[in-house]
């Protein structure tokens, strides 16, 4: 620094500069020679976990989304002695990474973790692993906290997203099996029969386009529409063949058949490309929704809450099949989980509220979504508030679909919604077909998968 203030002649100035540059570049070369790799450490889930010092009087912090907030408040009401600090957050819906962001920070600062969280199944993939080499996996293995008979009572396959390395890291709150929704009043009025196969669905689309233009049989503009349609079609878009190997094969016939079918129905406008929460859609299209392929929560959330369709019109049928296929398969759209923090100072209280939230008839019997805990699901279906909105009994469709959820659509370390929302939906809006967008969708999924460390196969 000081040498620069000393007056120098032109040539010696240049000499000093040259010497300085040489020194700097030499030191860079020397430094680079001994460089370590820039790749992040890979950490594997620890089987057990080190409990924090337990304090049975410690207040526990519960994070829930606004939909599950009343359930947590109800627990507080029925258990006045429980010390709860209730926090509302986005619940990791629609590919939000808020929870992951926060846990990353808590792991770095070493404090602040919530004791119990409501989250999406995707969150379990990172929560069951340490986020840094020195951290402990956020999610506690619930199989070490909850009795095995309780775990055994969850609906078949509903705890699969919770499982990692032989342990269960979450309890499923609800399942969101995809069923066939239809407006019984309009179907009776128009004299249509409810399709049971996808081919009949497509044919009905052509007929509706001709005879009742403006009416729709569904929409694909939501951030989760691919789960309703492509998951139901058994498209191997997010297929974990090994824990570290993801199969992304959008050229498989199971994907192209759905893309072709939807393209023909988008072309004749019997399927809308708008999002169901769009103000324009709710105003203009919602009253003309004849059918929808969507999860069990569509009834209360979309038709009753969003579209304000009057009670007594909407009914649910079994998932549609492809002609020639004997066994049915359907998709799943969401369905939350509850996780317990491995850092909790009061695991007993955290476990108690988690069990109450996921398995008790008191909570799940009147929950806003279909319970994953089978005994509670029976109570839920028998609860008149869950049935009186519909035109007919939805129990059969719901229970059938709950057992048909295709298991080839895996729970991955990245959200399956990002590529669909940011690549496919804008392309559809721009007038491209699904069939011609499949390669771009595939490329986006592959990029995301590789970025989180999966080996990808596309065959």
């Amino acid at each position: 620094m000081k040498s620069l203030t000393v007056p120098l002649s032109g040539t010696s100035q240049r000499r000093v500069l040259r010497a300085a540059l040489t020194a700097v570049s030499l030191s860079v070369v020397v430094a680079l020679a001994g460089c370590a790799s820039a790749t992040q450490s890979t950490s594997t889930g620890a089987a057990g976990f080190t409990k924090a010092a337990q304090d049975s009087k410690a207040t526990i912090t519960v994070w829930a989304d606004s939909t599950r907030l009343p359930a947590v408040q109800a627990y507080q009401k029925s258990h006045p002695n429980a010390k709860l600090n209730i926090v509302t957050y986005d619940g990791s819906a629609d590919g939000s990474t808020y929870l992951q962001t926060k846990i990353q920070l808590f792991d770095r600062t070493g404090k602040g973790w919530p004791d119990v969280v409501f989250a999406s199944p995707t969150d379990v993939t990172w929560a069951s692993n340490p986020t840094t080499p020195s951290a402990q996996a956020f999610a506690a293995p619930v199989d070490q906290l909850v009795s095995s008979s309780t775990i055994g009572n969850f609906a078949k396959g509903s705890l699969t997203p919770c499982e990692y390395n032989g342990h269960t890291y979450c309890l499923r709150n609800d399942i969101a099996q995809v069923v066939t929704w239809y407006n019984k009043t309009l179907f009776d009025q128009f004299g249509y029969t409810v399709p049971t196969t996808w081919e009949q669905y497509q044919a009905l689309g052509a007929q509706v386009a001709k005879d009742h233009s403006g009416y729709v049989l569904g929409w694909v503009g939501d951030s989760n529409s691919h789960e309703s349609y492509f998951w139901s079609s058994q498209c191997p878009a997010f297929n974990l063949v090994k824990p570290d190997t993801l199969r992304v094969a959008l050229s498989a016939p199971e994907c192209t058949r759905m893309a072709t079918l939807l393209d023909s129905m988008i072309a004749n406008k019997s399927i809308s490309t708008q999002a169901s929460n769009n103000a324009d859609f709710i105003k203009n299209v919602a009253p003309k929704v004849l059918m929808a392929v969507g999860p069990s929560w569509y009834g209360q959330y979309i038709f009753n809450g969003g579209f304000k369709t009057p009670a007594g019109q909407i009914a649910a049928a079994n998932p549609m099949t492809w002609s020639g296929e004997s066994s049915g398969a359907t998709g799943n759209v969401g369905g939350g989980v509850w996780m317990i923090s491995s850092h909790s100072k009061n695991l007993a209280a955290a476990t108690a509220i988690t069990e109450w939230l996921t398995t008790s008839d008191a909570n799940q019997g009147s929950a806003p979504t279909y319970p994953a805990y089978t005994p509670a699901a029976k109570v839920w279906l028998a609860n008149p508030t869950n049935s009186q909105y519909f035109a007919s009994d939805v129990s059969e469709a719901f229970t059938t679909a709950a057992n048909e959820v295709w298991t080839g659509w895996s729970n991955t370390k990245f959200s399956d919604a990002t590529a669909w929302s940011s690549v496919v939906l804008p392309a559809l809006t721009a007038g491209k077909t699904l069939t011609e967008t499949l390669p771009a969708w595939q490329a986006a999924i592959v990029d995301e998968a590789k970025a989180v460390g999966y080996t990808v196969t596309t065959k």
Partner: protein
Amino acid sequence: MTALNGGGRLTAPAAPSPARRRTPRRRAGLAGYLFVAGYAILLLAFGIFPTVYAIYLALTNDRGQFTGLNQFVKVVQDYRFGPAFTNILIYLVMWLVILVVLTVVVAVILRSRMKPGLSSIFRFLFYIPGALAGVASVLVWLFMLDPGVSPASGLVNALGFGTFSQVIAPQNLPVIFVLIAFWTGAGGWIVVMYGALNNIPDEILEAARMDGAGPWKSAWFIQIPMISKWIAYMTILAFAAGTQLFVEPQLLQSASLGRLNPTWSPNQLAYVLAFQFGDFNGAAAVSIFLLVIGLVGAGILVTRSGLFKADTE
């Protein structure tokens, strides 16, 4: 920020003080240091220290080992790096050109072609949106751009957009962000430019008029050259702020339920790397790229415009 750092560095050589009049000088110096201290401490804590820490992070991995430039190589090879920096480049070019041209033109018109009363009303109106906090202004635009709820839905429809998802198509995003940035930021700059034009002595403009220069000629040959340092100053700050684009795409991303690429801008990429992938080192490398781009941009503008020449004159 970056511009100010550059300024500090360039003015440093003027520091050596002669030995005479020692006592009064030192007193003045002490008071000066005291006044500067508040800013200097904050600058160290929230400007210099984080920068140094980011450089440290960018040169190491999450095990604390020295990695040389490997983090930079890694993020450049990331599939999201190219698109994010391309997006920000397109946005910056549009934003800076529009900002410079429109604020200067509007300021000149307000100064020379309008009655003072009307001019002050307009300056006030232009400034109002800038008083709205960043997040709120983005929310306002979310409503403005959604044909379903927009008070200007007729206009949005007339431009060929039937739905919100058509409005936020990827190719429209730079325009939307420029609109938001201009609406919130330009008003303040129009006021600043107007003030700069006010500093031009009336005699100069009168002389130009007597020499036969019309309003446009005196604007082009007298007024704009005389406020060129202010224009450079505005460009540096707008450039630095523009490369940091984060709130607008991030909010639009969540408001549209993910119809935007979550790593649209480099800052979003750094955010995703740090908080979603736990890769704070890679995120630091992205931020160092932004720092270097900002410094180089500011350096070019400072040297070309002679922004700090007044110090030595």
